[in-house]
């Protein structure tokens, strides 16, 4: 294997890691803040992709502009889901909420299938299929855009969590929900807001998935699992860790795909996560929760 295949795979993987970070951010936030393993996250991403697809087509606008609308819609969806469906079962431990999310994911998948059929779709723009040649390595433009956006988004969410009042309230509710409640923080509302925010990031993640790859109603699961791999690699619930984990997964997949062939690409991440968990159950960068 030539040096170029290897370094090309690694570089492309690193850039793709930015996209992975955006798709996993919401999953990581929800897990970090309320300990909910949100297995419906993949369907939120795919819903974002579908809405972006239809809104940008219907209004004839650029998908990134459409994503702004989709983010608002998904924020509302997420807020309401947490308020009406998750909050009531969250006092009874983690399993009921997990199974509820599992149920939601099945409902979402069958509705996608019913309304939008099994047709594979992708969001096409004039730039989404183009690429740059850098030192003989082909870099898709979408990878570069995603990487740039991921830097902005991760920095933005990090600043929001550390600087803003609401971000501090979220962190307080994360560390100790009971004390936060005593201190006058409406923990249930904080949870709902967090879910909404996570769903809004899924809007961008979905748009990028749609523009870079293609999607079908059942695509959510593989993206959910990528999110899980990233969160395990990066440490549960850490935003910077999520970014690091995503880049790592991107590189490993890129190199692995170049070496072993693309058929086993998705498998590599899943196998690595099992190996990491044998050695370090709290993740590569994580501390015990």
């Amino acid at each position: 294997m030539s040096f170029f295949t290897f370094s090309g795979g690694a570089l492309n993987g690193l850039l793709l890691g930015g996209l992975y970070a955006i798709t996993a951010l919401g999953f990581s936030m929800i897990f970090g803040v309320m300990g909910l393993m949100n297995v419906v996250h993949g369907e939120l991403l795919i819903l974002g992709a579908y809405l972006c697809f239809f809104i940008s087509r219907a209004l004839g606008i650029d998908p990134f502009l459409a994503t702004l609308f989709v983010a608002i819609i998904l924020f509302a969806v997420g807020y309401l889901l947490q308020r009406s469906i998750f909050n009531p079962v969250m006092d009874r431990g983690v399993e009921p909420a997990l199974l509820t999310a599992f149920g939601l994911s099945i409902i979402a998948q069958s509705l996608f299938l019913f309304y939008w059929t099994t047709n594979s779709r992708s969001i096409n723009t004039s730039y989404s299929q183009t690429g740059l040649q850098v030192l003989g390595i082909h870099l898709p433009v979408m990878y570069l855009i995603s990487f740039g956006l991921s830097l902005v988004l991760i920095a933005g969410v990090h600043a929001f969590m550390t600087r803003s009042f609401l971000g501090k309230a979220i962190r307080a509710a994360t560390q100790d929900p009971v004390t936060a409640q005593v201190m006058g923080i409406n923990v249930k509302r904080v949870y709902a807001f967090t879910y909404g925010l996570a769903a809004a990031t899924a809007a961008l993640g979905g748009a990028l998935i749609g523009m870079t790859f293609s999607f079908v109603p059942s695509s959510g699961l593989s993206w959910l699992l990528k999110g899980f791999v990233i969160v395990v690699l990066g440490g549960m619930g850490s935003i910077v860790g999520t970014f690091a984990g995503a880049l790592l997964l991107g590189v490993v997949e890129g190199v692995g795909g170049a070496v072993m062939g693309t058929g086993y690409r998705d498998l590599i991440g899943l196998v690595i996560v099992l190996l990491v968990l044998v050695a370090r159950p709290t993740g590569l960068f994580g501390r015990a929760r």
Partner: protein
Amino acid sequence: MLRRTVQWVLLGLLILGLVVAPHILDRYTIFLLYLLWLYIGLAQGWNLLAGYAGLISLGVAAFFGIGAYTAAMTVIHLKYHFLLGSLLGGVLAMAFAAIVAVPIFRFSGIYFAIGTLVLSEALRIFMISWKFTGSADGLALPIEKSPSFVWFYYLMLGVAAGATALVVLILRTKLGMGLRAIGNNEKSAQNMGVNTFRTKLYIFLISAFITGVVGGIHATQMGSIEPYSIFNAMWTLSTANTVIIGGIGTVAGPILGSIFVIFLGELLADYHTFHLAITGVLLILIIRFIPAGIWGELRETRPFRRLAGRTNR
């Protein structure tokens, strides 16, 4: 004394009915009953893990699929009888469980759930690419080898009854006692001298075996298998759903749940596209409003307590 007699007579009538059933019912109803036994088998295996050991597995499809593929491969290539193939399917599923048990038990509670989901998805991706097992096209079993349909009815009935009996038996042994202690409070169980790792491991293995055997038999019954439907997360959902609707952590729950789910499926047969969505809604509602499930609620009512002749459990 009279109560005991009534119970035995009812049980005898039930067995007689189930044995005679395939000779008087039409083919479609026999098939529904076959599916019922299949669900009961899977549900008992899952309930053992989730209901008693507190380990919510989202990887039913993995063990089901291993069983199915093992049976198919041994029947095709080694010319084994499919019964032996299905048994081997269970054994291989169990072996797989043993291998993954160490990393996967690092995940406690919720991590276990998604860890098993990762496993089954990794297997699915692998099987789609693996040429040895026919990759995405799957495998077709030799038709002349497969016995009549009534045969499968009895076989799956045996598996369902066997799985149920196994659960009842396990609950009466020391293993079952430890299991219940873990279900109540894992830390104090450990303090009281229960080897929690070993207990959970054994339960995990038994559950994998049951699931694998069911998968093996179902593969032979279908005659051809492919990775998309065999490793489909739908198997996991239906199983979890069945147990939760029926009553998690009870022996009768998986049975009642399976009857309910099959009945619901027939009711919604004309609305095929919405079947899964409605099942999902039902799952969410049951978790929220009747977490004990159908049997969990029913057994608290007076007639059932009298029939069972006791007040607890």
